[in-house]
């Protein structure tokens, strides 16, 4: 698996969430994802970036264009140094929220992409990786 392009964007305020969305949309268009897939990617990016901002007190987003053999895809990594997630199973459950959102962001994003993984340590931070293949 090789990385063809990598960009790192800060996620420090709600404007950054908009910029993160735009960057993901731009790369998805460059990769010629279908309109539905573009929208799924952008929506997942929006959810995860806002999670990093609201729950992780801000962090960063790394987007990569990756190629695995004949397949290409978009990989998004969201990192924050926030409080971490105590129970990943609960966090992924629909309707579970520690804030005042709908509690669908994390589980929903997982359904919007192909590969999804969460690495977290309480008190240290969280890193969420989401990949969608073409």
């Amino acid at each position: 698996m090789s990385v063809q392009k990598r960009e790192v964007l800060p996620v420090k305020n709600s404007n950054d969430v908009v910029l993160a969305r735009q960057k993901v949309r731009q790369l998805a268009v460059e990769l010629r994802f279908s309109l539905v897939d573009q929208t799924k990617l952008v929506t997942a990016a929006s959810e995860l970036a806002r999670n990093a901002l609201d729950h992780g007190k801000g962090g960063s987003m790394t987007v990569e264009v990756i190629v695995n053999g004949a397949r290409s895809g978009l990989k998004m990594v969201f990192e924050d140094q926030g409080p971490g997630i105590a129970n990943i199973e609960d966090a992924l459950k629909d309707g579970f929220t520690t804030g005042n959102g709908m509690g669908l962001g994390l589980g929903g994003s997982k359904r919007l992409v192909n590969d999804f993984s969460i690495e977290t340590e309480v008190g240290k931070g969280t890193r969420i990786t989401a990949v969608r293949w073409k």
Partner: protein
Amino acid sequence: MNDLAEIISQNEDRLRTEWIRTMSSSVERADLISKAEMNEQCGSILKEIVEGVKTSGPENLSGAGWNGTRELLSSISASRARQGFSPTDVATFVLSLKQPLFVLIRDKMGKSPDQLFETVWSSTRLLDSLALITTEAYTATREELIMRQQQELLELSTPVVKLWDGILALPIIGTLDSARTQVVMESLLQAVVATNSRYAIIDITGVPTVDTLVAQHLLKTITAARLMGAECIISGVRPQIAQTIVHLGINLEDVITKAKLSDAFGLALQRSGRAVVKTAAAAAANPLSGLFGKREE
């Protein structure tokens, strides 16, 4: 340290001419500012610098003696920011004073190297600080401009239009962040009261992404409108948005949604007991069609 003030004030005319010449060779913006205006600005800045060096010395730029210079430079760079100068143009304006000033200092103090170095060093620090002031003022003006445009955009982007008696439409265009949603919600609820409307159509054709936050904002708006006795219909749900909403698991079952604004309008008309009927007399009602008919004969 009043040597510097003396040098400047004694050779003001020469310095100003040289300054303008240096400036024109690096950045000539005759399209944006006239020679006479430039001449006047340079003259008054030199006077203020002399005043500042005399009263507060060249090091202490926050001193009262420099107030005049700071104000003048700030207002000049602010007006330049609005005129369309680039940041480089604005910084170069002050920095291009260096060369003529240094030449002048060398002419006067060439015989004593220590004094020469001292004076050049203090004047270069002075001019650098002045350049920073101009850059700061320039950025501040630009930021002010951006803030104002954001405000204007906020107001522009939320028109509530009346489609029929008792039927409102709110076409939302762009990103729905918290600040905008607040404006959207307020203007819709106010329009519901003002026009006594029973139906409100929220059109999201122009919203690029519908994530959980946007959905939550929409649901809140709909609930609030319902409390006031108005039924909301969401229109402009594009195929990709519909699929994304399904994957996200957002429940919009309690909300009436339509793919097109025209469908939503049709439903609202129907619910309020109205119907759009096609009449055969349409052709006759159009005076132009009669006109063309005659011409054919």
